């Protein structure tokens, strides 16, 4: 190597090194940020998210607790608070409607979760064991999940219509009813009608997760069972069921949590009526807070929902931990 070249190399490297040193010493903001430790970087990057969640979730939740201890009144566009202690909660406990609302909520939740899982199970099994037109089915399968609750309620209200509903026509043709029924206005049928619509929407998601669990079963297990002379029923009980049990557990908890917060569909289809027959805690809270403008009472009711949800969240976390 000749002298000149060596000189250039050293000179070049020196320049580069010098630049780097200068960058390290003075550096722009970006350089300085880049030298932060992992912990500082983590909290720096998390700051906007945490601030937002603090401001829009935790502060409001605390504030809701305060509201639930007050009577809020609107006078000439101004809001006034009266601290009333536990009286909103007392009012709830002594409310003649409360017990009914609570039992509706429990009924709605249990029925919906069980029925959704059962139907979804049937669908995922059908897909798993070979479905005619599977490609097409997989394309349309998520439609109920994707539609908004407003559109969902629009569709079902129309199908249930006591005047022009296709649902009535089909049942009439099949001989189940003698004349058109007002499904959503009859207090004996409204609950089932709403449930049916809500289940329809929830099934695809649950079926999808069940199917994913089934498809993760190793093929060898099935082959081994066939070699041992087991039929489809043996395969179902001894291979599929044990394998997807963890997913079923998780789904039970998730679905329960989600069903506890169902509001849109019930509100849009029946507003909780007729005669409170479809009134659940969520609808009740909304009605009290935004129809009767008793925000304190509404907050107290929604705190009850929160506590119920937290209990289930706790179970959820625990189930997840067990499964992992």
């Amino acid at each position, binding site marked *: 190597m000749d002298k000149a070249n060596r000189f250039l190399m050293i000179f070049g490297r020196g320049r580069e090194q010098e630049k780097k040193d200068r960058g390290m010493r003075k550096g722009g903001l970006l350089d300085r940020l880049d030298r932060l430790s992992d912990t500082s970087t983590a909290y720096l990057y998390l700051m906007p998210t945490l601030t937002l969640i603090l401001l829009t979730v935790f502060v409001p939740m605390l504030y809701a607790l305060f509201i639930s201890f007050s009577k809020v009144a609107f006078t000439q566009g101004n809001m006034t608070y009266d601290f009333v202690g536990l009286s909103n909660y007392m009012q709830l406990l002594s409310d003649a409607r409360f017990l009914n609302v609570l039992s509706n909520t429990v009924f709605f939740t249990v029925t919906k979760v069980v029925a959704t899982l059962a139907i979804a199970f049937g669908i995922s099994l059908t897909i798993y064991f070979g479905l005619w037109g599977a490609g097409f089915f997989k394309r349309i399968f998520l439609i109920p999940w994707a539609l908004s609750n407003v559109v969902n309620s629009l569709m079902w209200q129309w199908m249930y219509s006591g005047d022009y509903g296709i649902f009535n026509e089909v049942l009439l043709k099949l001989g189940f009813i003698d004349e058109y029924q007002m499904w959503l206005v009859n207090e004996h049928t409204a609950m089932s009608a709403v449930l049916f619509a809500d289940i*329809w929407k929830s099934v695809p998601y649950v079926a999808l997760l069940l199917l994913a669990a089934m498809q993760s079963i190793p093929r060898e297990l099935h082959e081994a069972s066939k070699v041992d002379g087991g039929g489809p029923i043996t395969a179902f009980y001894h291979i599929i069921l044990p394998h997807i049990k963890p997913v079923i557990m998780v789904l039970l908890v998730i679905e329960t949590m989600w069903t506890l917060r169902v509001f849109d569909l019930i509100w849009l289809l029946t507003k909780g009526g007729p005669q409170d027959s479809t009134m659940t805690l969520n609808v009740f809270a909304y009605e009290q807070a935004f129809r009767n403008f008793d925000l304190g009472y509404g907050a107290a009711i929604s705190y009850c929902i929160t506590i119920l949800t937290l209990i289930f969240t706790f179970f959820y976390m625990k189930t997840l931990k067990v499964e992992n």
Partner: protein
Amino acid sequence: MNYTATPRRTLRRALKGILVRVISLSLMLYVLFPFLWLVLSSVKLPVELLSRPPVIIPEKLTFKYYANLFENGSFMTAVWNSLIVAGFTTLLSLVLGVFASYVFARLKFPGRKAVFLTILGSQMLPQMALLIPLFILMRMSGLLYTFQGLVLAYITFSLPYVVWMYYSFLQSLPHEIEEASRIDGCTRLQSIFRIMLPLSATGLTATGVFVFIGAWNEFLLASVLTDSGSRTLPSRISEFIGQDRIAYELMFPAGVISCIPVLVLVLYFQKYIVQGLTEGGVK
């Protein structure tokens, strides 16, 4: 070869084939019928729409009411509002969520688990419990009935969701390429923007699609936090139901229009949506 058994076997196979087809068709009908019926109803003239017994296949299709909606000022405002609100919700929660997910997927630091659970847990709180204080706080701060207010309320739910979903996508991505880029002199931000984001583009898109659909469809918060000027599509459509005369012929096309962006997204991104739904245990 057993000749006597062949016809019986053929028959059994044929029966099985028919049974499979019947079950499959009824499943498809169950999943598809309500929506098909809505679409059919949206192109019927009132004569056939309001008939008893219902007319299944209309003799004459009409797109008159779709056209009416496009000329309806308040409806088009609602479409526009929905686009703005859903768009900004998606954009903001992705921008913030990318950094948060990066932190959880790539960095080790004290308090990691606690912070992660706090962010995820905040999504599990029922919306109803948040709505009442949000309504009052927004009323006091002047955010009530504004896009900013609604977007803020949506971010509450979409941001934890983005963190969770994008985080699980990032975890399935190898660290090595990023680490190599760091050794080669990329800054942390460069390795995020030049390496991690392009590599996880599909995950990011899927997450964005989820957030957009959620915000586009949302009704509860919108029904309280918007007024006639800032109504989004779902709350505008729900008003059709409450009008003195139920405007069926407008309601159904409006419903169909509100589904179009969502259905396009779902059909186009099907693969990633399925992946997102099965990976994250969150709806």
